[in-house]
């Protein structure tokens, strides 16, 4: 008879890390397939690509997976001196495919494959291995890889078509919804949502973006699956997305926008994908409940701040990497306040005040810029002329602008309510002809002193028409 000595407990839950990672993979499969459809099958059906191009999205993702797997295995062999069985055990428990998989899902399809490989290399080595491998890294490895690619090779990617696949380049043109939102600097449904269809296109993923981020519907399904399987730190995505929703709701309300605006904000820019898959990366997010709550609130606040106050549309990526640094601090707060619930209220109240103040501040900053800028309208547009209006000093100025092959040939003022004396100054300065003659160098045409507002209005008309023709 042999009695084994073991340390208790003598029963253990059936859950294990392998199962968690497998479930994560299962949750990603529909998203991968959708990306295959959107960037491959759809292109093939519309004769935008050949058979290789059809399977290219899958090849792209597979390349990411293989790269990070090989990089980690070789790294373990060379630098950790693991061989044979030990190497096998290491591979089994290091989950090396994930950095590469996620890098390929957070990059656009136009990323050249060698740059993707480089990104995966950076993700695995700089993002994971130098900290000591799985479980020890501070930053989300995939986002490190993605940050590296986007900050170093963004010009190459945008010259390849940026975030739009070949089909979208023809049907939509331009940029991703958030980049577009940066350019138009105006908050209205027509310029933010309409170019891409309607909100259901945002929900079901018919918008430009990276491989994994576009189909909000499938991401929500994946979230539900992961929640039911107890895989995910569920508080993080729920609070993160809600914070962004509430803040953009306030910003929208200040600017008189409807519910579509906060919905647009959470359905674009990879927020859902980031919230569900990147912000909840167990290794780089807090382990304590309160820590997770604060982490998620701050993620939301940071994302909104980055989106509105800086020029980078990649608010999600930057916020997650920023918050990764604060995880030890948040866990400290979280573990102390487990014993004193009242103390936990202090950081939370501070966060709510920050959230409200920031939203109001951002909302108001849009309010003022809108008064200045957004009065230009195209009323009619043909091959030979535009009929446009712009707000002048006394009311709208209406003009017919004749064009020929991308140049303005003649400007006819149809209506103006400007003060006569001011308008005379413009006529005397021969300002309209100046605008036509200098249209290639329009920014340098000075306004007419004494009739600044009226002349600026005319100049804006010309600038906008020129932009539209190039468009």
């Amino acid at each position, binding site marked *: *008879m*042999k*009695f*084994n*000595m*073991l*340390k*208790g*407990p*003598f*029963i*253990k*839950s059936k*859950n*294990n*890390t392998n*199962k*968690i990672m497998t479930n994560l993979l299962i949750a990603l499969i529909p998203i991968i397939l959708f990306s295959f459809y959107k960037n491959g099958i759809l292109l093939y059906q519309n004769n935008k690509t050949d058979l290789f191009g059809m399977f290219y999205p899958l090849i792209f993702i597979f390349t990411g997976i293989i790269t990070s797997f090989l990089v980690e295995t070789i790294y373990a062999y060379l630098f950790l001196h693991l061989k044979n069985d030990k190497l096998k055990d290491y591979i089994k*428990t*290091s989950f090396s495919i994930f950095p590469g998989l996620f890098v390929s899902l957070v990059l656009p399809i136009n990323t050249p494959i060698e740059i993707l490989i480089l990104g995966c290399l950076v993700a695995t080595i700089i993002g994971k291995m130098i900290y000591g*491998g*799985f*479980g*020890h890294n501070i930053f989300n490895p995939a986002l490190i890889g993605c940050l590296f690619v986007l900050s170093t090779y963004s010009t190459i990617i945008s010259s390849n078509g940026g975030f739009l696949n070949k089909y979208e380049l023809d049907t939509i043109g331009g940029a991703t919804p958030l980049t577009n939102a940066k350019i138009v600097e105006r908050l209205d449904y027509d310029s933010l949502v309409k170019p891409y269809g309607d909100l259901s296109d945002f929900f079901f993923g018919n918008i430009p973006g990276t491989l994994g981020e576009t189909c909000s519907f499938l991401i929500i399904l994946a979230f539900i699956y992961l929640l039911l399987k*107890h895989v995910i*730190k569920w508080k993080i995505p729920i609070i993160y997305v809600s914070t962004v929703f509430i803040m953009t709701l306030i910003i929208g309300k200040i600017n008189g926008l409807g519910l579509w605006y906060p919905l647009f904000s959470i359905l674009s820019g990879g927020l859902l994908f980031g919230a569900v898959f990147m912000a909840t990366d*167990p*290794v780089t*997010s*807090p*382990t*304590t*409940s309160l820590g*997770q709550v604060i982490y998620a609130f701050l993620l939301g606040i940071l994302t909104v701040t980055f989106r509105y106050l800086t020029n980078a549309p990649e608010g999600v990526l930057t916020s997650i990497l920023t918050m990764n640094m604060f995880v030890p601090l948040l*866990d400290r707060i*979280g*573990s*102390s306040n*487990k*014993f004193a*619930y009242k103390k936990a209220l202090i950081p939370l109240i501070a966060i709510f005040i920050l959230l409200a103040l920031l939203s109001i501040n951002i909302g108001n900053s849009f309010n003022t810029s809108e008064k200045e800028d957004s009065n230009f309208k195209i009323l009619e547009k043909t091959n030979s002329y535009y009929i446009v209006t712009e707000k002048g000093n006394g009311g709208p100025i209406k003009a017919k602008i004749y064009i020929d092959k991308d140049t303005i040939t003649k400007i006819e003022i149809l209506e103006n309510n400007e003060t006569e004396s001011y308008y005379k100054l413009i006529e005397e300065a021969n300002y309209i002809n100046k605008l036509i003659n200098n249209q290639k160098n329009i920014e340098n045409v000075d306004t007419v002193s004494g009739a600044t507002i009226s002349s600026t209005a005319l100049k804006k008309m010309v600038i906008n028409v020129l932009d539209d023709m190039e468009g």
Partner: protein
Amino acid sequence: MGEIMIGIKLSKHKKETMNKIEEFLNPKEVYFKIKENDEVLVKENEKVIVGQKIIKTKYDTYIHSSVSGIVKEITTMIDYQNNKSNFIKIENDFNETNKFKENDLKNITKEQFISNLKENGIVGLGGAGFPTYVKYNNDDVKTLIINAVECEPYITADYINCFNNIDKIVETLNIIDNIYNLNEIFIAIKTKNRTLKEKIIPYIIKNKKIKLIEVPNLYPMGWEKALVRYIKHTDYDKLPIEKSIIVSNASTIYSIYESLKYNKPLIEKIVTISGDNIINKTNVKVKIGTKFSELKKIYKGYNSKEINLVTGGPMMGYSVETDEFIIPNNLNSVIGIKKIKEFNPITCLRCGKCSDHCPTKICPVLVKDNINNNQELKRLNVERCIECGICSFVCPSKINLREYVREAKKKVK
């Protein structure tokens, strides 16, 4: 703070032993552990009768011989926690005569009650083995909670005792009520335990103070703090008496009954012997101090040659390296489980499940991270740990976090 229910569901494994009880009251020899500061009251070769005081403990309570026989030498044996300790050996002469006579329990005073418990060595049978008279030696007792939850898998010793002796338990509760004039008495059982519920209800109907409470089928619902939190919606710091509450195990109440009614000391108890590897899974009433291997006549041995023998429940129990260990007064079960795969821990995923599930709100993962930083360990309140083992149970990376917290507890002491 309300009813925050923290706990996990475990598979019960209780069906096989639920309705089974056997007796083994004639061991060849019995052993009693001599703890630090204990005073031995007998000499070698002295003849003792059943129920005779043989050890005086540091709490001024006594340990009694569970058989009649002759005191032999002090020997080294393995206790149920697999530690080598000194034991007094008593050889059974099988000349036991039942000398326990019935007492009149009317008008018993509190002083009589306390001294009775003290003299008869009644201890809490839930596991800790703390002297019961200390618990009851308080003037301000308003609530009594009877713990019949038994939340660890396999164990049915309390259940069967409660089921068979509910009349005596309720009689004891009435006596305690008369002494302390309690506000309320709760009998806590597991929810969905219909048979037990239906058995208890007719007995408690007469005393309106006694209420049957069904608690969720979660581990560790049988933990005092969880029970008080669930039933009384309140928290205490160290002991429930801070809130005028006493929590007693159902089997303890039965031994109080025997002590009061027959002046019978704590010399017998029910032990569950169960697990896949035990041939005859059963409950057995044994003399305290019996060597476990003597019970082979009852449990019939093991199913395989290589086994894990666990004393106590599978969550909080201990591994023993032999079946020749001694059954003390606070052991409820012995479980033989098939050789389990050694769990190879892998790197922590930092999923936070251990922190989420800890009933004492410790963050085991952070304890593990800071195991060499004593100041940080103090801040993490490691001394609150009740060693329930949930952190080790839920960990998907199979890290034995309880060992880290145990180590941390020792460090901050």
